[in-house]
């Protein structure tokens, strides 16, 4: 493998690792905020406990998410120096403002965790709201840069030199509103379903008093309701994203849908394996005209196929599988809360174990959907780093040693992934919610998060 492939492997692995913590870092504060608001409204101390315990989990995740975010932030300059040279000239603003959003999040998170006891409820909620806002803004701003890679605007390339830079035009590039809303909404979705999973896990565990089960059921209900809202929003918004793709990155959509020839009444291809040589998709289910309708709102709308661009400029065809996976998970996540609601509506019983297992699965699946979406978005742009401006082979470093760094970092991520799980498990095992009746005195001054 050459250093381009190693660089992509190292950065891709780093992103795949960081994205778990970044997504939960956006999603969990919203859940904590909702619990705090419910506590202020209902005065039910269970919600206060919930906010506290979720904050603890969030703190452990931040302990990994902050260094992993630092890693990707620095690695991108180290591995793609050619890319960053253009980024710095054209799309530096979102990166720079993102830092300040990061400050906002870090400052208010600390204030919320270590000074909560000294703040009025309104200030406490304001702090938490600003944590959530800072986290969301970080995601939105980084996505502005990522969207710009797909739809680069705000500059001209003349003889390999960047000229006529308009930083704000680059910032508000055509893909930005779609990508940023998609990232934000799906992060809230994933945060909610992570809590669904945790609640289901606790309810599936044998033992536990009636009171404990009631507590976990309450958390599960809140998370499912939030998840339901964001699952629907993600689907609606995802449709807009796909249409923007058809307009701005047609070959990416073509690869996602494995459409080779430009045509009207294009079918929607579900699953299957795309074969570039025969230009067919094996084992696929086709819905006639559906792709045209999705992309253009008309069954006779013309959708561009892969053959519009030279073969060497095709995105990899495995993006078809990633795209399908993401969409199917999104659909499944609408069905989970719907199923629970219907069951409650018509059976009026405690949830059966099989349904709890489905809930347990929903969190990891949501995260898998996020991973698939990101890998789709970035590999679907290949062979370009900046769409039709800079190829990945021109962007990546030519230094050696990337392979050995890849191994080092991969080992680090694997270790941290397992260690985070173990630490979470150990912490919540030794601090079950039953120990929190009544609320213990808060211990400040320890590095908790």
């Amino acid at each position, binding site marked *: 493998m050459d250093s381009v492939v190693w660089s992509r492997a190292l950065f891709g692995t780093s992103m795949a690792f960081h994205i778990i913590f970044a997504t939960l870092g956006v999603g969990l504060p919203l859940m904590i905020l909702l619990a705090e608001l419910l506590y202020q409204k209902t005065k039910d101390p269970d919600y206060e406990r919930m906010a506290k315990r979720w904050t603890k989990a969030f*703190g*452990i995740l931040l*302990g990994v998410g*902050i*260094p*992993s975010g*630092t*890693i990707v932030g*620095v*690695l991108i*300059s*180290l*591995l793609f*120096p050619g890319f*960053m*040279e*253009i980024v*710095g*000239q*054209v799309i*530096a*603003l979102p*990166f*720079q*403002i*993102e*830092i*300040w959003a*990061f*400050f*906002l999040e870090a*400052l*208010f998170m*600390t*204030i919320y965790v*270590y*000074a909560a006891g*000294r703040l009025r409820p309104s200030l406490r909620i304001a702090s938490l709201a600003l944590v959530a806002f800072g986290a969301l803004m970080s995601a939105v701003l980084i996505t502005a840069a990522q969207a710009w890679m797909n739809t680069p605007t705000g500059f001209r390339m003349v003889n390999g030199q*960047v000229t006529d*830079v308009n*930083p704000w035009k680059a910032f508000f590039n055509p893909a930005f509103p779609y990508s940023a809303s998609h990232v934000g909404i799906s992060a809230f979705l994933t945060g909610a379903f992570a809590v669904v999973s945790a609640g289901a896990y606790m309810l599936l565990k044998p033992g536990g008093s009636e009171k404990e089960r009631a507590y976990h059921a309450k958390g599960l209900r809140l998370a499912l309701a939030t998840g339901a809202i964001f699952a629907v929003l993600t689907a609606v918004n995802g449709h807009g994203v796909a249409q923007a793709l058809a307009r701005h990155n047609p070959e990416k959509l073509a690869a996602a849908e494995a459409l080779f020839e430009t045509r009207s009444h294009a079918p929607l291809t579900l699953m299957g394996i795309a074969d570039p040589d025969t230009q067919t998709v094996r084992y696929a289910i086709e819905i006639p005209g559906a792709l045209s309708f999705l992309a253009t709102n008309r069954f006779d709308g013309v959708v561009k196929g892969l053959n519009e661009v030279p073969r060497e400029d095709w995105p990899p065809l495995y993006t078809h599988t990633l795209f399908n996976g993401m969409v199917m998970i999104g659909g499944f996540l609408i069905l989970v809360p719907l199923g629970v609601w219907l069951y409650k509506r018509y059976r009026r019983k405690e949830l059966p174990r099989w349904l709890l297992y489905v809930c347990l699965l929903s969190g990891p699946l949501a995260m898998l959907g996020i991973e698939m979406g990101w890998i789709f978005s970035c590999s679907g742009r290949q062979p370009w780093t900046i769409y039709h401006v800079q190829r990945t082979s021109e962007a990546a*470093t*030519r*230094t050696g*040693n990337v392979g050995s*760094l890849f191994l*080092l*970092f991969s080992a*680090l991520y694997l270790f*941290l992934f397992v260690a*985070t799980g173990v*630490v979470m498990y*150990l*912490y919540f095992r*030794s601090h079950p919610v039953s120990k929190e009746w009544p609320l213990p005195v808060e211990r*400040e*001054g*320890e*590095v*908790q998060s």
Partner: protein
Amino acid sequence: MNASQLAITLIWVLLYVYSVLGSIDFGAGFWAMVYGKPESEPNRVANLFLSPSWKVTNVFLVLLVVALVGFFPHAAYMLGTILLLPAGLVLILLAIRSTFMVFAYSVSGSFAGTLRIVSGLTGLLIPALLLSVLPISLGGFVSMADGYPQLHFGRLLLSGTEYAHIGFGLATELFLSALFLASYAEESGREGAYLFYRKASLWLGPVTLVTAVITTLTFVPEASWILPNLQRAAPYFSLSVAAFVAGYSALWWKGRGGRTGRPKAAVLLIALQYGLAVFAYGAAHMPYIVYPFLSVEEGFTNTAMFRQLLIGYGICLFLLVPVFIWFWRLFFRDPAYLAKD
């Protein structure tokens, strides 16, 4: 001063701020490890400081990197290429340090002790390694082949100047953190911790000065271009030394409640000492970012972007300054927090 000089001044200011904050942060982690028992006062003070501050300090590191790329995108190309290995190693250490620190407080037993030791030691190494960037930027360790820069990492690791820089980094980290924690201990009224950190500062202070002088004596021949520049900046270095003498002597001034030493004054004066030294060093480093391949002018971004960046920084700073002040009062002044056990 033209635009690129203004931008590089800003970068040096950020570098100065991070070098002080980072030193205190990683140093505090080390002291907390040395005094591992949670009930000991020095450990208590270090953790009381670290808990609310480490995240914010970490953001300053990212700010420094991002600002450098933003203001000097052409420098990003060269620095990214040559710093891959050293910066990659720092990132791994940083990840281990922060995660282990957080993990150590979420689990109990001997496992937590191990985590704390690893976290303290990795943290100790980070500022030392970060200082390796300086000898690299001075020349002698980078070569050009077909217009493509390459770092000779092996040569760097075998050079005396690298270890002099590391020594200076270690001494600075331990001195600044001990001094700051002495002041923090005084503020929180922990006499035992104050005496411990004051004593540590007393012997570490002169060490920083000696290692700084040794470092300038170890420059490789390729870096000799900076020596006349450093001599030209001598007035500032003299002021810096004067600030050190004043700050160091403040540890004997008569303080609050008959205590020996005015640690807060000492912290401010030593911060001034480092500020002057960084400014003088930065001025001597002109016009190069990496000698002799990359000048400040060559690395600089376009004026349209520069203007927007300045406006952006101005607005964000304006919005966040009140939060920083509030943060400071909650965790550095409020007796209700400082008295926590």
